[in-house]
């Protein structure tokens, strides 16, 4: 139920007084309401649940976590089991 997936905003338009985005999720695109994330813009990644964006992904936070994880991963791959 709380499944929510990240997708990239391709386009934003006003419809009936609300902002609606066309969002790409992997190979498909879907309309997504931006009522709760009105600041989201084309190129942003939003987490979407039942047709509504609930957050705009923070690229800096994502990169920070990944860099941290990558660093650990790289340390590990220097071991004898590295491919």
């Amino acid at each position, binding site marked *: *139920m*709380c*499944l*929510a*997936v*990240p997708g*990239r905003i391709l386009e934003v338009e006003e419809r009936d007084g609300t902002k609606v985005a066309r969002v790409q*999720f*992997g190979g498909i695109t879907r309309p997504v*309401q931006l*009522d*709760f*994330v*009105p600041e989201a813009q084309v190129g942003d*990644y939003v*987490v979407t*649940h*039942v*047709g*509504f964006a*609930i*957050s705009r*992904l*923070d*690229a800096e*936070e*994502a990169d*920070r*976590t*990944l860099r941290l*994880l*990558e660093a*650990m*991963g790289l*340390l*590990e*791959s220097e071991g004898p089991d590295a491919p």
Partner: protein
Amino acid sequence: MRYIDEYRDERIARALVADLARRVTRPWVLMEICGGQTHTLMRYGIDELIPPQITMVHGPGCPVCVTALETIDKAIQIASQPEVIFVSYGDMLRVPGSRSDLLRVKAAGGNVRVVYSPLEALKMARAQPERQVVFFGIGFETTAPANAMAVWQAKREGLRNYSMLVSHVLVPPAIRLLLSAPHNRVQGFIAPGHVCTVMGYREYEALSREFRVPIVVGGFEPTDLLEAILMLVTQLEDGRAEVENQYARSVSHEGNLPAQAIMREVFEVCDRKWRGVGLIPQSGLRLRPEFAAYDAERIFKLEDASAEEPAECLSAQVLQGLLKPVDCPAFGRRCTPESPLGAPMVSAEGACAAYYHYRRHRVAS
């Protein structure tokens, strides 16, 4: 795809598991609340990858599973009426009520439809003003803003044929109940990342302080969960009990304020009965009196009737983390996804279904 693939990187997962193995010195019991996270754990075999000292038990975070039997019976009653189009998220259709389920109502000619968003139900109401469109409003805090928005929109447009059967539930009161139970064995929680995307994590700080329990807000990909487990074990081994946010790319301390605002405008907090758990005070949301005209329970004047679960179904203990699905004698024998005894075997987020689907056919012997 960005923000997904990198969090499924096997190399990173192995590094996290290795770090976990270095840190853990004794047994710990951790619980992930959210059923989506339970499925990630099972699907990627994370529960078997982590050091054996760490036991993951699975929480009640599956709205389909905890929707009261009586509410399912009400849904069936409403959906059976000829003028009604009953609209639901897909998982609810096969959940057993006390005598039937929504799928059987549909098979018998009832107009039961599955949607992905409550806005689709709103569209049906606009297109067919002669029919009563009733939306089954279930879910946790993640789903409540969208469902609230649909009702708010219906009121703004003056739609008279849209209503909602509301059975919303809230996560923090359920954690409080689990922690207050005398038999509780959970020592650390992974808080649900999408609930916290909406609500932030202030409420969890209060719980963590009161019960001196570490809580880590976690994401949904395999490396998210491994990192959250690592953060919990690190806290436990260090003797700390704090709230930390692993899923910071989506979750902020205050959460999504516009989403919270629409929730507060449309819903108010109420006591709620959870299937398999019982009544939890202040653990639900219902429509505010200003939105009473959109309350399906009022429109259809449904009686409150109590109903009994089949005695064979042990989902009550499973939902509270006291039993693993495979410990239930009916698991995989009398109870399968094709012929479920209880809701956790039905839902895409139910713990029993997760064990059944991901190579856990091993039945209790």
